[in-house]
């Protein structure tokens, strides 16, 4: 164990002692940091879950072309040829009405409905994956295909998924802004805590300088203090988030079950949770660094 290491251990212990000496205000600080972190982390979790839903549907522009119930095989073959030769199409798949019904049976909650029917209500269809085209042209193409003989109805399937995806993008930006603001707030909270610490320890700092303490030795305990406080705040934030999700999920599960779904909000991945805690610690360190730099400069003999 060398001197450098033992000095760090001492600084770490010193920081813990200072936290313990001011238990009430340390606890409040940690709580403030935790709640401030729980907000953007919670938003991130909810968005992540929404995105999970959106990702189940293809976001590539896709068209479903449903044939008229009474369409003749000749119409169908003509349409297929026409579609396959169209340069705007990336892939064309024919879905016979029986296959569509079989697929529908697998969907939760629908099987009972289908069983009640005595004949297949579904038409034959073509599912078309398009080459990347702008959304306005997608509508025009849908209208164009709708005029072809034998075509009953054309649906641009992915429009809502794309809208959801765009909405998530906006939400993501909002959360990034919120996170940035609250991160600045966290730095400010730590800045102020450390400022008070530096001022209470003014005498000790001056004496230590007179006796030959390096700047690093004087600063180190404050850095640890900021980082430990940030880390503790980060863990409180994660706990708040986990608790909130557990509460929310009680309601969401009940709701989802009525739709025959097992959807629920999932917590952050372990890596993300770790990142939140470490990021909080880093912000605490930054607040301490800024505070110590500002307040030591104007203090005592150099």
């Amino acid at each position, binding site marked *: *164990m060398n*001197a*450098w290491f*033992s*000095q760090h251990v*001492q600084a770490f212990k010193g920081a813990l002692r200072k936290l313990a000496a001011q238990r009430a205000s340390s606890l409040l600080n940690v709580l403030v940091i935790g709640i401030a972190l729980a907000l953007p982390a919670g938003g991130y979790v909810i968005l992540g879950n929404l995105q999970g839903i959106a990702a189940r549907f293809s976001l590539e522009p896709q068209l479903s072309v449903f044939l008229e119930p009474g369409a003749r095989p000749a119409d169908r073959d003509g349409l297929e040829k026409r579609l396959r030769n169209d340069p705007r199409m990336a892939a064309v798949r024919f879905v016979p009405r029986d296959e569509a019904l079989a697929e529908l049976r697998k969907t939760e909650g629908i099987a009972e409905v289908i069983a009640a029917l005595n004949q297949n209500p579904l038409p034959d269809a073509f599912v078309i994956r398009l080459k990347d085209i702008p959304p306005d042209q997608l509508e025009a193409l849908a209208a164009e295909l709708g005029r072809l003989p034998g075509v009953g109805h054309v649906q641009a399937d992915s429009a809502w998924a794309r809208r959801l995806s765009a909405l998530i993008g906006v939400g993501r930006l909002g959360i990034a802004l919120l996170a940035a603001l609250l991160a600045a707030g966290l730095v400010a909270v730590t800045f102020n805590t450390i400022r008070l610490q530096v001022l209470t320890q003014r*005498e*000790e700092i*001056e*004496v*230590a*300088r*007179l*006796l*030959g*303490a*390096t*700047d690093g*030795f004087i600063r180190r305990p404050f850095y640890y203090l900021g980082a430990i406080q940030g880390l503790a705040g980060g863990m409180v934030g994660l706990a708040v988030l986990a608790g909130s999700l557990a509460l929310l999920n009680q309601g969401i599960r009940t709701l989802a079950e009525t739709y025959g779904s097992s959807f629920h909000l999932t917590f952050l991945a372990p890596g993300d949770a770790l990142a939140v805690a470490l990021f909080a610690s880093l912000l605490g360190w930054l607040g301490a660094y800024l505070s110590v730099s500002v307040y030591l400069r104007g203090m005592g*003999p*150099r």
Partner: protein
Amino acid sequence: MIKFSNVSKRYPGGQEALRNVSFAIGAGELVFLTGRSGAGKSTLFKLIPAIERPTSGSVVVNGQNVSAIKPAAVPILRRNLGLVFQDQKLLYDRSVIDNVLLPLAFSGFAPKEAARRARAALDKVGLLSREKANPIQLSGGEQQRVAIARAVANRPAILIADEPTANLDADSAAAIIAIFVSFQQVGVTVLIATHDMALIERSGGRVLRLEAGELVAGGDPQ
């Protein structure tokens, strides 16, 4: 060990605290610095650990030119000096032993070795039995002895003190000076600023005399 060459110090505002001061102190010497209040004793004291910088001239301590020292080198300089201040500068939020341990903490000693040295230093000033006490519980003379223990815990080659007996009765003052003399006897260079002439006469060290910022006795002309 300590060499002042044509040192002047003018504080911002025009007051000249030291004027063209030159002297040298050899290794193992005991030197007293005397003069009235305001003669420049404290200013001279502050130039040695680079608490203040001279306006002109050079201050060399242990072969190092302190007047041109880089800020990053100041802590190392101070660790190699034992400093005793007029107002002791003890910390009253911790025990006597923790006060003595303070300079050892940043000199890179392992905790065990630091504790050993701190006890040895307290033992030398006769306060080992009070190591757990808070300095506030001690008398003025005892507090000054704690300050000395803290100054010598690092075993510096040079010990300098600014009015260490200022607020003490005659017996306590004599005890303090006796402690300084005992360090000089084991080879430490000792410089004490004081206006107490009676003490000086009994101890028999060399005397530097300041008057209105000028050295009028004891300096060796360059």
